[in-house]
């Protein structure tokens, strides 16, 4: 299964970049960060916002990656590698872009932020721990965002105008439902900003990886059953 997924991911990545489909989600994300974060804000709170905003943006990248490929050229790839692998390639390309964005976001927020925790917080967390927790939270949100996007696109949703509202609804749900790893990780960052004690969200990351892998494998398998 994985033998040809690398070249397919690379293909979809190049498609995403060359078609400029990467640009609108990127600009929206930058806008969200600019509006939501002021230079000099405490780092942990900003990281929480940056990670949360990344979730719908990752879902958007999935829709972008899937829409960037015309049906005829997809058919050529499907003949070579099978529909499931081609679909997986697109999902992994969207995930790659989202992860790059996560790294960029953490670096940018580190650059612009002031103190690590809120003023008056009892603890004095180290910058390294805060950055690690922020990065992992962003990765959790990117993974779940890709899952949301995959569930709100073909082949799960074959046609109709409901893709975008459904993706947004799923993304919002994943952010607010307490059982969601994204919600737990973001809450952890916000709590750390108040208390000054950073907890690195390893469990949430593991859960998100499992959820995303299971969800995307299911969607890719469905792509094999419902190729068009």
């Amino acid at each position, binding site marked *: 299964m994985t033998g040809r997924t690398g070249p*397919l991911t690379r293909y979809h990545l190049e498609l995403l970049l060359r078609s400029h489909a990467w640009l609108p989600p990127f600009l929206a994300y930058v806008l969200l960060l600019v509006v939501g974060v002021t230079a000099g804000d405490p780092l942990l709170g900003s990281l929480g916002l940056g990670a949360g905003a990344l979730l719908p943006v990752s879902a958007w990248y999935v829709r972008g990656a899937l829409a960037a490929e015309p049906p*005829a050229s997809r*058919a050529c790839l499907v*003949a070579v*590698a099978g529909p499931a692998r081609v679909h997986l390639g697109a999902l992994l390309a969207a995930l790659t872009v989202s992860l790059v964005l996560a790294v960029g976001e953490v670096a940018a927020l580190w650059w612009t932020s002031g103190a690590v925790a809120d003023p008056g917080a009892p603890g004095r967390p180290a910058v390294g721990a805060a950055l690690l927790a922020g990065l992992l939270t962003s990765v959790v949100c990117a993974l779940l965002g890709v899952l949301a996007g995959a569930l709100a696109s073909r082949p799960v949703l074959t046609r109709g105008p409901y893709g975008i509202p459904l993706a947004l609804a799923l993304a919002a749900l994943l952010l607010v439902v307490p059982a969601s790893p994204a919600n737990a990780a973001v809450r952890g960052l916000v709590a750390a900003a108040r208390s000054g004690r950073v907890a690195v969200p390893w469990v949430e990351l593991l859960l998100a990886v499992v959820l995303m892998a299971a969800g995307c494998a299911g969607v890719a398998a469905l792509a094999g059953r419902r190729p068009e």
Partner: protein
Amino acid sequence: MELAAVGKRYGRGGRWILRGVDLAVGPGELVRIAGPNGSGKSTLLRLVAGIERPSAGRVVRPGPAAYVPERFPPALPFDAASYLLRVGRVHGLSAERARRRAGEWLDRFGVADRAGTPLSRLSKGTCQKVAVAQALLAEARVLVLDEAWTGLDPEARAVLDEAAAERAAAGGTVLFVDHDPARLAGLTGAAYLVGADGGLRSAEEGAAPPAGAGPVMEIEVDVPDGAPLPDRLPGAPERTRLAGTEVRLAVAAAHSDALLRRLLLGRPAVRVLAVRRREEER
């Protein structure tokens, strides 16, 4: 490559576009699929290529397929060379090999100078050449051509004819649909017709080129070790034994290039003694 009791319809209760289709195509065979517009020829090819799943029955393929769609989208944001490189990588070629093959095919189609041009700025015909090259560059076991000749200039059509013959000669399976009933005539092992009921019938055609249809080329070869020539040769040449291990092959001029290429590249090794146009008989 085998289709067993294959049926296809879109949605439950939809019309059966194909029904009860049995088709077995061996390595080295060229098969033509015919039928009126909208009869399900393209659907059949898409099933063979694995792009769609049958609603009934099963499709068995010996390996990955290469597919040339009817209409290739110039909306793809690649330039020709990098698109072919990416597809070659998906085929499992190394980057270096993919790049070389892409260059070779663009060259063979006479568009090597347009390798760096974005597909969106290529003419329709040139874009179609890229679509064909994408399918040819990896030498897939199964080659599926859905009206791939449409939009190509005569030279490129000849190149594609030759490439399809080469693929079959190398043991590949080639399925094609084309409007021109003379397409690959004489090379085609079998032809099938998709009926209005979605069934597939053998179409009796393409067995031998009609006598007197154009000039005939004679190729005389010597097979030094006396081994028999392959049963299936491009253009289905008429064979005459000459003295010793020498054989004369007579073939329609349209297929003589493909035949020569096959003879020179394939097994058994042969020496070509003479190539000439057959004299008009009195």
